């Protein structure tokens, strides 16, 4: 995992790239997520695991408190996931927004598997973890 950047609103730059984040689709995580949402279909990986990979990538780059407060999510699937897949999440800071005295980061992510196959793309808006202006 990459070290989180020293997070200061003024030092963030729209267009900057996030450090690549590696996420393995482990049996334990898949079983845990199935348990959370009551999904007993053992033949598939819950789609939300991709969201976890993206949020973890964002948290690894920008998080400060061990968690990210989610505001919006766009999510597009491009292929099925399998247990054991080793995913790479690449991201870019698309926008920095101020709305109703709250700061937000909008981050685009692409997720590829170990063979370079595009699995998902996403655009995630999170509350800036460094606090209000």
């Amino acid at each position, binding site marked *: 995992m990459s070290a989180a950047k020293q997070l200061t609103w003024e030092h963030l730059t729209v267009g900057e790239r996030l450090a690549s984040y590696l996420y393995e689709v482990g049996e334990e995580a898949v079983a845990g997520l199935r348990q959370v949402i009551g999904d007993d279909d053992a033949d598939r990986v819950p789609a939300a695991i991709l*969201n976890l990979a993206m949020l973890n990538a964002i948290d690894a780059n920008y998080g400060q408190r061990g968690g990210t407060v989610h505001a919006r999510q766009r999510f597009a699937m491009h292929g099925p996931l399998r247990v054991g897949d080793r995913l790479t999440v690449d991201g870019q800071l698309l926008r920095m927004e101020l709305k109703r005295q709250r700061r937000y980061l909008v981050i685009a992510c692409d997720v590829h598997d170990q063979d370079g196959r595009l699995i998902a793309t996403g655009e995630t808006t999170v509350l800036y973890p460094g606090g209000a202006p």
Partner: protein
Amino acid sequence: METPLSVPSPMRLHVTDEVVAAYGRVADDHNPIHFDDDAARAVGMPGRIAHGMISGALLLRLLQDGLGTDWDHRGVVELVFIRPLPVGATVTAHAASREDGRLEVWVESDEPGHPRIIVGTAWLAADELSATQ
């Protein structure tokens, strides 16, 4: 316009402390606002709140169940997290067909007034590549 999408709904989940703890382990998200009433109150919440993606994951399961392999290859969803969910509430994920062929999706809480906590839209991209557009 494509054939209107339709998926069976609703789907319910009681978001207990155990569910929140399990999600925290899976997501490696240990933000104290999810586990400690005092920490949650310190940031303006009435008490501890569930991770937003617990409800989001339930909604994704609804779509994955209803759209099957089409979802895995070209599913797209846009979600807005509009309200925090107190731990202990029950959520219900819904999907309704729209005139434009897409699905209106939402998750509502069983709190008084049944407020919506997530709202959004889901659809299938015309082909796999266009899911990036």
